[in-house]
C-alpha cells in the first residue's frame, strides 16, 4: 500500500517549527515541531486538550502562533486568514461539516471561485458539469443541484473533501472526519484518502479511533499537554504504546486496566429510591417501568431511537408525560416539571453537553452553582463565599482542570466541561443521577475519570441510571441493564446476565428486521 516510501527524503510540504500558542496564560502549544511530506499520511494524536485543535488552527490560519514559524515547502510563510492557507494549498475537513446547508452541492464545492462566463456572471451549467466530474473522480454519485442539507452526513463530508481537494490542495487536514459517518461511508472516505495520498497530497489525519489511524496513516505525531511526545512510523509503534504515549502512562498499566475504569459493579438490596411506572408519551415511549435502589447503577440499553434519552427526560421532568408516574421514596413527583424533579432529588446530565448543558460564556464557578443558586441564596441574594465553598469542593473532588474558578468554561476541554456539568448536579445533593452518554466526545483519560467517578458516587449510595452507546461501558458499569425496544420495555439483564454477549443479543433482538428502512427517532411508529 505504501507507494510513497521515498516521502521521507522529500522536503516537508508543510512544517511548523517551535510553534507556541498561549490563551489567557494557558500554554496550548509549547514549542511544537510538526512536519508532513508530500504523499505522506500523518496521524495527529493526543487526548482532548493536548493541543491538536490548536495546532490545526495554527496550520490553517485560524490562529496566529505567538512564537515559532510556519514553513511551506521550506519557505517561511504566514497565514493571516484561513483564506491565505487555502490559497497556499492547505485545506481542512472539519469534524462537523462546515458547508452551507441551504446551498446546492455544486455551489458548496465552488463557493468563492465559481466558473464565470465572459461577462463575469456565474456559469451554472459549467459549474454543475465540473462538480459532477469532480465527484465522479471519487466515485460519489449525487445530484449536484440538490441542496446539501437534503443529503446524508456521509455524502456531505465527501462534498467537503471534494471541495478541499479541488482547491489545488497540497495538504488536506482531516479533523475527526468519520465521527458522524456510517461504516460504509467510512470505507468510501478511506478509498478517497488513499487516492489523494497516491496523488502526492499530504494528509494530516486526526482521530480518536485507533483502527482508522492504523488503516490510513503511515506515520504519527503524538501530542500531550501541548508538547510533541512522539514522532515516528506507525508500523514501529504498537497500539498499546500509542495509547500510553497519549495518556502519559506506562504500558503495562494500560494493558491491565481493561476497557473501562469501572471497578466492581454496584447492586443493592435496599428498597428502591425511584420508582417510575408506566411512563408513556405518544410516539416516544410507552409503558416504561424502572426501579432503582440507592447505590445501584442501572444501565439503560437500546438502539438509537429506542427511547433511552426520552425515558431519562421523562424522569427528570424535562418531557411532559401522557401517562405514568415517578415517585421518590414513595412520594409522587409532579410530571413535566424540572424544578419539582430537582427538589425531589432527580437530576440529569443531558446528552448534548454543548446545547443542553454548559453555559459557554460563564465561568467554571457560575456553571457549577447555576442550578444550586436557589439553595445557596437567601432572599434572592447569594454570597460569593457560599458559592466558593461549593465550587472549591467539587473542583478538587472531580479534578477539574481549570486555571481558576473564574476561567470561562468554553475554554476547558470536553472532559473537564463534562466534569463541571456533573459538579453542577452533585451540588444539588441528588438522590438519583441520570446520565445520558456521560463519556461521549471526551478523551480516553477523562473518560476513565468520569467512569471512576460514577463508581465512587454509586458507592456512596447515589442511585444512577446510565445511558451509553458503548456496549462495554454499559456492561462494565451497570449491575442491571434494562433494554428498551422501540419505545417500550424489552429485556432486562441482571447480575451474571450482564455480559457483552447478552446485551448484544438483547439489542439485536430489539432491532427492527434488517431489511426495513431505518426510521428517524420518534417518527412514523
Amino acid at each position: 500500500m505504501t507507494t510513497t516510501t521515498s516521502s521521507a527524503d522529500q522536503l516537508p510540504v508543510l512544517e511548523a517549527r517551535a510553534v507556541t500558542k498561549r490563551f489567557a496564560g494557558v500554554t496550548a502549544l509549547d514549542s511544537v515541531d510538526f512536519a508532513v511530506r508530500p504523499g505522506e499520511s500523518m496521524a495527529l494524536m493526543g487526548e482532548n486538550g493536548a493541543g491538536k485543535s490548536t495546532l490545526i488552527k495554527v496550520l490553517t490560519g485560524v490562529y496566529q502562533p505567538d512564537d515559532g514559524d510556519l514553513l511551506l515547502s521550506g519557505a517561511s510563510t504566514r497565514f493571516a486568514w484561513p483564506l491565505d492557507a487555502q490559497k497556499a494549498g492547505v485545506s481542512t475537513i472539519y469534524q462537523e461539516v462546515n458547508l452551507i446547508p441551504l446551498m446546492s452541492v455544486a455551489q458548496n464545492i465552488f463557493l468563492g471561485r465559481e466558473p464565470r462566463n465572459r461577462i463575469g456572471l456565474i456559469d451554472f451549467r459549467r459549474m454543475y458539469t465540473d462538480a459532477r466530474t469532480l465527484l465522479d473522480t471519487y466515485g460519489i454519485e449525487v445530484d449536484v443541484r440538490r441542496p446539501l442539507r437534503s443529503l446524508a452526513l456521509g455524502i456531505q463530508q465527501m462534498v467537503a473533501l471534494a471541495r478541499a481537494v479541488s482547491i489545488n490542495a497540497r495538504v488536506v487536514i482531516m479533523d475527526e472526519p468519520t465521527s458522524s459517518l456510517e461504516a460504509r461511508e467510512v470505507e468510501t472516505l478511506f478509498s478517497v484518502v488513499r487516492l489523494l495520498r497516491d496523488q502526492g497530497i499530504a494528509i494530516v489525519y486526526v482521530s480518536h479511533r485507533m483502527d482508522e489511524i492504523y488503516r490510513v496513516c503511515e506515520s504519527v505525531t503524538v501530542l500531550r499537554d501541548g508538547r510533541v511526545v512522539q514522532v515516528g512510523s506507525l508500523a514501529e509503534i504498537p497500539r498499546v504504546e500509542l495509547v500510553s504515549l497519549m495518556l502519559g502512562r506506562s504500558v503495562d498499566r494500560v494493558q491491565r486496566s481493561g476497557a473501562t475504569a469501572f471497578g466492581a459493579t454496584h447492586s443493592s438490596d435496599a428498597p428502591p429510591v425511584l420508582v417510575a411506572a408506566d411512563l408513556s408519551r405518544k410516539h416516544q415511549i410507552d409503558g416504561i417501568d424502572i426501579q432503582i435502589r440507592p447505590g445501584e447503577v442501572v444501565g439503560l440499553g437500546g438502539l438509537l431511537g429506542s427511547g433511552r434519552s426520552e425515558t431519562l427526560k421523562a424522569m427528570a421532568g424535562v418531557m411532559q408525560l401522557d401517562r405514568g408516574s415517578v415517585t421518590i421514596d414513595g412520594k409522587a413527583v409532579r410530571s413535566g416539571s424540572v424544578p419539582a424533579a430537582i427538589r425531589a432529588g432527580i437530576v440529569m446530565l443531558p446528552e448534548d453537553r454543548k446545547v443542553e448543558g454548559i453555559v459557554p460564556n460563564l465561568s467554571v464557578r457560575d456553571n457549577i452553582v447555576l442550578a444550586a443558586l436557589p439553595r445557596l441564596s437567601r432572599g434572592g441574594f447569594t454570597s460569593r463565599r457560599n458559592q466558593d465553598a461549593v465550587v472549591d469542593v467539587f473542583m478538587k473532588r472531580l479534578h477539574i482542570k481549570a486555571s481558576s474558578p473564574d476561567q470561562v468554561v468554553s475554554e476547558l476541554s470536553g472532559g473537564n466541561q463534562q466534569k463541571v456539568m456533573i459538579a453542577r448536579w452533585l451540588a444539588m445533593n441528588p438522590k438519583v443521577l441520570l446520565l445520558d452518554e456521560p463519556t461521549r466526545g471526551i478523551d480516553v483519560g477523562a473518560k476513565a475519570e468520569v467512569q471512576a467517578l460514577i463508581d465512587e458516587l454509586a458507592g456512596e449510595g447515589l442511585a444512577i441510571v446510565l445511558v451509553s452507546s458503548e456496549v462495554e461501558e454499559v456492561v462494565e458499569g451497570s449491575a442491571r441493564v434494562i433494554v428498551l425496544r422501540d419505545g417500550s420495555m424489552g429485556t432486562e439483564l441482571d447480575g451474571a446476565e450482564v455480559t457483552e454477549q447478552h446485551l448484544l443479543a438483547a439489542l439485536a433482538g430489539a432491532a427492527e428486521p434488517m431489511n426495513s428502512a431505518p426510521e428517524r427517532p420518534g417518527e412514523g411508529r
Partner: protein
Amino acid sequence: MSIAVEPSAGPTTVTQARRERLAGVLQGYGAAIVLVLLAVVGSVAFPTFPTLSNFTNIVTQSSFPLIVAIGMTFVILTGGIDLSVGSVFALGGVLAAYGSSWGGIVGGLLLPLVVCGTVGVVQGFLVAYAKMAPFIVTLAGLLAVRGLVLAVTSGGSNTPLITDPALQALGQSHVAGVNSSVVIAIVGVIVGTVLLTRSRGGQSVLAVGGSESASTYMGLPVARVKFSVYVISGLCAGLAGTLNAAYSSSGVPTVGVGLELSAISAVVIGGTLLVGGRGSLIGTLAGVLLLSVIQNLINQVGSLSSSVQSVVSGVFLAIVVIFQTVLSRTQRL
C-alpha cells in the same frame, strides 16, 4: 464498540421530500400568490380598486419602499438587520433638496448618495469589522441620523424645496406610463437579482447568511460581504429618499418614520428568512406590493379608521410570520 446508528440527514420518504419542496415553493412565492388572490378579491369587491389610476397609484407609492427593501433584503440575507433606513430615507430627501439648490441635479444626487453611503460605511464597519451587533449599531444609526435630519432643517421646521427642473423631472416624469421611480425600482430588482444569483459576491451573501462560520472556514471574505450589504442598504435608502423628494418637490424631514419596519416586513413576507441564507428580491417585490395592496384595500373600505388600519396590517404580518415559521419547520431548516 459503538452501536449508535446515525440517522440520515436526507428526507425519509418521498412524500416528505415532496412536502418539503412544496413548503419551499410556498415560502418563496407565497407572497406573490396571496398578492394575486387579494387583487382578484379586491377587484370583485370594490369597483374602484381595479382601475388604471389606482394601480398606477399603488405601484408609484410602492416604488420608494421597494428601493429601500432591496437594500434591506441584502442585509437580512446575511443574517443582519438595518433599522436606520427610515432615517436615512429622510436624510436623503433633505440632502437632495439642499444639494440641488446649489448643484442642480448633480448636487441633488451626489450629496445624498455620498452622505447616506457614508452612513452605510460607518454602520457596515461597526458590524463587520468591529463585530458589533447589527441591531444595536443600526438602532443607534436610526436615532443619530434622524437627529442629523432635524439638525440640518432647524429642528424639522424647515422643509427645503426642490426647484431644480432636472431633479423634478427625474422624480415626476413618466416612462411607458409609469413614474420613473417605478422604472428605477424595477431595474434595481433586476440588477439585484442578477447580482444575488449570478455573481460571486451575491453567492457569498447567501453563504454568509447560511452559515457564517462555514463561510469563514471556506475562505470567503465574510467581513467584506457584511460590510458591503450595509453600504448597499444605505445607498438604497438614500436613493429612495432622493426620488421621493424629487417626486414631491420637497425634502420633508419627518418622512420615513417606521419605514424600517415596513421594509423588514416586506422582506420577510417575501419569503426571505430572517436568519439569512435564503430569499429573493422577486419575493421582496411581491412583499412590498402586498403591503401596499392591503393598505389600498383598507382605504377602499373607507369606513376603517387609520388606527384600525395598523391593527389589520399588524395581524396580517403576524399571520404571515406564523405561516413562514410553519413552512420553515416543514422544510426542517
